[in-house]
């Protein structure tokens, strides 16, 4: 790791004020390993853990609002999240391993937007909204590409709003080594229609409109009969080919619908 200056500001404006020359540090589960590998070498780390506005979970019957610094383990264990959006609690409880969940945060995960990360699936699948220090960004606009988001330089995620779905489920086929998603599918029947989001398969999470239309007619596993994906441009790596990932998508989608119906 190259040397850096370390700051732990006490208020949000101070944190954002330092961002021109620094990087935010949340759980450090992605940033610190990349700094060790010198893939990134910030001059200054702005630790977000001293900012009270960024932690905690607020919920009402319409939405669950989660602070950016809320750890995956807290989301997984939250009685409110488990009651209102059990699929989201289960998703958080399946990220990495318990040690990663004890440090990693919602804001850090979405800001990174790893192609195989789980939370981007929930953001698209539930039609969530990212609230930053300067604006609100709809989930559909937030995710823009591989490791890329609509965040401007220095823009800080403060919290994320997840609307409560009538029913929802997330099923992933985890990489056995890291438990990142080879393919994960988030299915939700929301107030504005059925949403189906896929993560892990391609450069970034995306929606499957053909699957959504089929489930909109009838929210049942049979509705997905015969539906598949071409796999064009899907990820290929040592864990699996693009064809393999393409074959996993409909399987995970059917399992997710079955799981949503079983809730």
């Amino acid at each position, binding site marked *: 790791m*190259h040397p850096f200056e370390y700051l732990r500001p006490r208020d949000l404006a101070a944190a954002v004020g330092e961002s021109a020359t620094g990087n935010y540090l949340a759980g*450090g*589960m992605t940033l610190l*390993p990349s700094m*060790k590998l010198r893939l990134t070498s910030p001059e200054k780390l702005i*630790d977000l853990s001293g900012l009270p506005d960024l932690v905690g979970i607020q919920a009402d019957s319409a939405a669950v609002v989660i602070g950016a610094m809320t750890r995956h383990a807290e989301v997984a264990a939250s009685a409110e999240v488990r009651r209102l959006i059990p699929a989201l609690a289960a998703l958080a409880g399946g990220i990495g*391993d*318990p*040690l990663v969940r*004890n440090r990693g945060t919602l804001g850090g995960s979405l800001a990174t937007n790893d192609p195989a990360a789980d939370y981007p699936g929930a953001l698209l699948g539930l039609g969530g909204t990212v609230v930053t220090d300067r604006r609100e960004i709809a989930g559909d606009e937030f995710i823009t590409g591989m490791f890329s988001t609509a965040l401007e330089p220095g823009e800080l995620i403060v919290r994320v709003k997840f609307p409560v779905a009538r029913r929802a489920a997330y099923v992933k086929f985890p990489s056995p080594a890291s438990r990142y998603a080879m393919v994960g599918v988030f299915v939700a029947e929301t107030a504005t229609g059925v949403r189906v989001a896929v993560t892990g398969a391609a450069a970034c999470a995306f929606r499957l409109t053909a699957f959504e239309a089929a489930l909109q007619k009838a929210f049942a596993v049979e509705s997905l009969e015969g539906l598949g994906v071409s796999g064009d441009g899907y990820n290929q790596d040592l864990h699996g080919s693009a064809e393999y990932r393409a074959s996993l998508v409909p399987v995970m989608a059917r399992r997710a619908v079955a799981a949503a119906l079983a809730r």
Partner: protein
Amino acid sequence: MTVDVSLQVNGKAVSAAVDPRTLLVELLRQQLKLTGTHVGCDTSQCGACVVHVDGRAVKSCTMLAVQAEGSSVVTIEGLAQGNTLHPMQEAFRACHGLQCGFCTPGMIMSAVDLLQRNPNPTEAEIRHGLEGNICRCTGYQNIVRAVSTAAAKMRGDSAAA
């Protein structure tokens, strides 16, 4: 440039001047000479470096020492009461839950955290709860047995082995 950091380690107040890049595990092993916490991979994969920070198990190779400012840290050295091993340590010994022992400090710290949240885990829950800890020797069977034995003991089941 150094930063002053103050924390509790195994119940004792500790202060140190550290370069901000110092990892928590480096502070523990190199400055405080608490070498029970191991470094296996240094890439957040293996769990050999697990310690408790404010009651939660974390990988100390993936946390800066300065991030532990004001925290209470417990390492493997902090579990035993004098010469009496913690029930989890005792169960690992009795069940042969280790061979080379390299993964063991992290394994035990993760297992203790697991039981704090779930005092009566099923075998599947134990395996899921230890997913962040890799052992290259035992094949895990005796580790799982040790954790369920310790769980029974800590719950006070008289039938416990």
